[in-house]
């Protein structure tokens, strides 16, 4: 059922659409797990999607991460120096980058780039009836198109985050060296000295959820897009917005859980 098909609303049109969207996402995720674990597996398509998502996003993610690391240190340095805490710049930048900036920036960029791409691609296929054609030809479009993309985003976002963290730390190192003269060994020694597993593991774990959310939202909105090309554009737009909101909500929940476990 879709809301307003018979001009009947439960709450209101907007609220009904919101809850319908949530239900759609939950149904879609169950379907992904149900169909995704059944053979035959589409390894080749997963591999292709990993390439599309990982390699093609790397330059964008890497550049953004480098600039963010650089800017973070340049912005923080005057205040920290004013408080006599200039020596803590490596520790501050490493904790900020690994805990929050790296995963969140990677996820948001991927939500914009990959989420909209997936949604637009699947929406186009839907409105041009390519998905129906696949069903007719005996290929399970859900397994081939949706599950592969969600698996690819779930696997690639963590790897992109590792790169983003590393590149961002290098950016922070360059940022520190603009006005100071810090040895790279000293810098990375301080970086790893100030980090703990309690910083790395929660932030790395949440990137899998980020990836899953981006893939799931993108595929759901694209797969269920309506009303021709207009619907494709709308699906891409909603996909980006929902992915970003989902990423931020997951980030908040993970941070809260980490705090409750006493790791913050």
């Amino acid at each position, binding site marked *: 059922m879709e809301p307003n098909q018979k001009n009947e609303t439960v709450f209101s049109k907007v609220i009904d659409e919101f809850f319908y969207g949530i239900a759609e996402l939950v149904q879609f995720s169950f379907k992904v797990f149900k169909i995704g674990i059944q053979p035959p597996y589409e390894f080749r398509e997963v*591999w*292709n999607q*990993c*390439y599309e998502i*990982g*390699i093609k996003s*790397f330059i964008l993610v890497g550049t953004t991460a480098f600039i963010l690391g650089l800017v973070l240190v340049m912005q923080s340095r005057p205040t920290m120096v004013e*408080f*006599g*805490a200039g*020596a*803590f710049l490596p520790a501050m930048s490493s904790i900020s980058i690994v805990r929050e900036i790296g995963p969140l920036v990677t996820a948001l960029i991927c939500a914009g780039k990959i989420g909209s791409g997936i949604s637009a691609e699947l929406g186009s296929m839907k409105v041009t009836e390519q998905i129906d054609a696949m069903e007719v030809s005996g290929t399970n479009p859900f397994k081939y198109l949706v599950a592969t993309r969600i698996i690819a985003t779930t696997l690639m976002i963590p*790897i*992109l985050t*590792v*790169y983003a*963290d*590393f590149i961002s730390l290098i950016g922070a190192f360059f940022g520190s060296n603009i006005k100071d003269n810090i040895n790279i060994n000293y810098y*990375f020694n301080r970086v*790893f*000295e100030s*980090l*703990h*597993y*309690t910083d*790395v593991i929660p932030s*790395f774990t949440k990137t899998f959820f980020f990836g899953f959310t981006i893939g799931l939202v993108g595929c759901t909105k694209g797969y269920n897009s309506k009303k021709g090309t207009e619907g494709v554009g709308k699906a891409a737009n909603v996909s980006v917005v929902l992915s970003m909101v989902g990423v931020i909500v997951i980030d908040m929940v993970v941070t809260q859980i980490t705090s409750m476990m*006493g*790791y913050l």
Partner: protein
Amino acid sequence: MDSTIKKSILLGFFVLIGIILFIIGIFQIGAKNEMFEKTFPITAKFTNATGLKLGSNVRYNGVKVGIVKTVKLINDTLVQVDMQIEESKRSFIHKDAIATISSDGLMGDKLISIIPGKNNTGQQIQNFDLLQTHNPLNTEEVLQTLSESNENIKVITENLKMVSTELTTKNGPAQMLYKDTTLAKNLKQSFINLDAITGKVLIVSNTLENITMQIQNGDGALGKIINDTGFTNNLTNTFNKLNATSNELNRVSNGLSIFIEHANTSKGAINMLLADTAFAANVQQSMQNIKKASIGLNQNMEALKHNFLTRSYFRKQEKINNKIKESENK
């Protein structure tokens, strides 16, 4: 080469490098957190463990030797901190080592700083040993003290300002002290005099010291007074006798007092002698008469010396007297 294969190679490289970076990061963090080093546990108890947390550094004489494993409350006043210390550092840490909570710089993370004990027993620390602790310096107390110091400094600065103003004010007493060369010369001379006096005082002091030494050794009268027990006994006897004499004198004095009082009050001869003016006039008249009689008697005696009847007697007497004088002279 097929583009699909190229893509696969590129993706494989990308994924591998990503995983390697992740593993390097994990190993580096593990190495910094003593994950791959053999460690042993020790414990310390503090009344306040503000800022300490899992993974906080433990340093011995400023060198990192371990990390904090757990921080837990054990009663209403004590916090138990369990630490993991590198096995290779065991030989440096002794049983009497002292643990304190300090911070990495003024605003840095809290850490446990272990310092060597004063006894230096030489006994190596063992597993689960409980370290002595010094409670950490409370930042609020430090700030409170600093605040009080600031208040004091403010007062001192104001006083200094007043002194400085006095010094720069023309013709003020402070400036006179500051710029008056005569006064400075006088002061200098006073100090020279004081120096000389001090030298003399030193000499006097030395002399007094010598005297004291002599007294202590029993030399001299004072030394004997203080040290000679026989002399002391004699002195005591003397004082006893003096006391007895004094008592006797007191008694005589009392007697005299009674006598004088009696003489003054009674109508006896003495009172008449002392108080009766008519009697005194009679006595005076009598004395004048005696004086006159004495002169007359002298004249009579002189006449007798020249009288032929008595002249021989006087000559004999003169001869006898001369003989006595000659014998005395011989």
